[in-house]
């Protein structure tokens, strides 16, 4: 497969989606008042792109996303490596982790507003809370996946605990971390937007809420498309760095 084939195929996939959204309302499959054809959504998107408010909102969302993700991923990886490599700690925290994980961020909104108001702070808190668990659980599974022979090699050469983590556990867990961060990246985006939607802190989510409340259906879909496209871009970036950092791994080297 040549280098650009995947890009072309991906573009074809997205074009297919566009076509479906164009045709479904046009053929009367859905009412076009509620799901307008792609062309009208794109027109609305173009209109949005012309307004500075849209770019400001996009910027706000991205800042909340990036900060939240960075904190969640950092904390998740750190906690995962520590908890994962100390069995007693793992046994001790397991129940608490499982208790906290299913608590929906949306249910914590009043608490977040109480603590941080409606600004960036509460959005960040919700984003971090939701994204943290995604990374943590992946890292825990990743650490458990370490090859015993590789681990014994490290032990027999008396690697320090830090070196064991750095040179053995971390590379083993890395593919899991990648999946975790990819999951967390979109969860962070989802939460950033949901928080803005509900709390009303500035950002794409708020714009969506306003569009919804205003019966501006194409504009609302245009904004949703923007969030989706953000997801696509984030994934491209993740895949790119995966090729770079996981070149040694079966999943990547198997494809050369």
């Amino acid at each position, binding site marked *: 497969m040549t280098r650009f084939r995947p890009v072309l195929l991906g573009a074809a996939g997205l074009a297919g989606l566009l076509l479906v959204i164009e045709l479904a309302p046009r053929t009367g499959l859905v*009412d076009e*008042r*509620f799901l307008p054809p792609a062309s009208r959504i794109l027109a609305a998107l173009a209109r949005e792109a012309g307004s500075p408010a849209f770019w400001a909102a996009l910027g706000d969302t991205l800042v909340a996303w990036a900060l939240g993700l960075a904190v969640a991923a950092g904390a998740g990886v750190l906690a995962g490596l520590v908890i994962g490599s100390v069995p007693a700690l793992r046994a001790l925290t397991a129940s608490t982790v499982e208790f906290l994980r299913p608590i929906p961020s949306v249910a914590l*909104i*009043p*608490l977040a*507003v*109480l*603590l941080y*108001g*409606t600004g960036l702070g509460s959005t960040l808190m919700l984003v971090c809370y939701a994204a943290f668990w995604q990374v943590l659980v992946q890292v825990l599974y990743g650490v458990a996946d370490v090859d015993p022979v590789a681990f014994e090699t490290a032990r027999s050469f008396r690697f320090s605990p830090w070196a064991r983590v750095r040179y053995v556990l971390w590379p083993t867990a890395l593919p899991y971390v990648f999946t975790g961060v990819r999951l967390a990246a979109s969860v962070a985006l989802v939460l950033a937007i949901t928080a803005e*939607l*509900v*709390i*009303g*802190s500035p950002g794409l989510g*708020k714009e969506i*809420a*306003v*569009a*919804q*409340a*205003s*019966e*501006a259906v194409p*504009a*609302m879909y245009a904004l949703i498309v923007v969030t989706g496209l953000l997801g696509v871009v984030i994934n491209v970036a993740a895949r790119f760095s995966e090729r770079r950092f996981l070149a040694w791994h079966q999943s990547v080297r198997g494809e050369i």
Partner: protein
Amino acid sequence: GSSDDASGTDGVDAVKVGVIPIIDVAPIYLGQKQGFFKSRNIELTLESGQGGAAIVPGVVSGQFQFGFSNLTSLMIAQTKNVPIKAVAAGVASTGQDGADFGGVVVKADSPIKTAADLAGKKISVNTLKNIGDTVVRESVRKKGGDPKDIAFVEMPFPNMPAALAEGQIDAAWVVEPQLSTIKAAGGRVVASTFVDAAPNLTVAAYFASTKLVQEDADLVKRFTEAINESLTYADAHPDEVREVLGSYTKIDEKLRASLILPKWPVEINEASVQKLAELGNTDGIFTGSPDLAELLP
């Protein structure tokens, strides 16, 4: 200014108000534009949240100085001892049957002709056990129907046009701009619920935390005055209201022109609030009886 943390150096108070980005709060945007707040040394920031989940905690915790909410919600909060107090009128019904800014709508070909036909039907409201279902029940009762078997379904206003068109609900209790959207698609208004509930019903109000009311009566007073001026101005200048809507919502121009605007009287109609409280009691949405003297200014 005298408010402790919100005061600026030059005696200007920075005030944050939590509002919902809907038509009801047009006056405060208009008043801001007209400088009614600035002239009273209030530096106004409007923050829009989606309903009470964010606004009430924001006000209680002092993140917002004021908030906007419907009266039933305020009364519910009051019965739960949430430390808040209404400080100014928010929005009121037009009082005209068939030409109010909210009501129950059905599809063009629906067999439902009057409110009485709503008995036993599936009706959407934006929040269950709140102002929507109580006023709908009252409309049905007034037309001689039995509201007991109505199945209320909770869904956000923006989703109602589609749900109604797809037949997922029999009728929708909506406000503008969804009301106009549905009517434009052939929908019929079968009940003007606010009108049925009470004459000139005050639907919503601005409120503050009791702490702020006690500790900074001056700020509250200035805010109330500014709001009142805004309300009066808005009531008198519907065209400017329609225009200011374009600044904080995305309602398109055509729709803006056809909206039915609510009334913005300065006074909270206490009798109507009393009626709302009674309706709430009848329908059992309060845990105790709300203390209106405590709640209203």
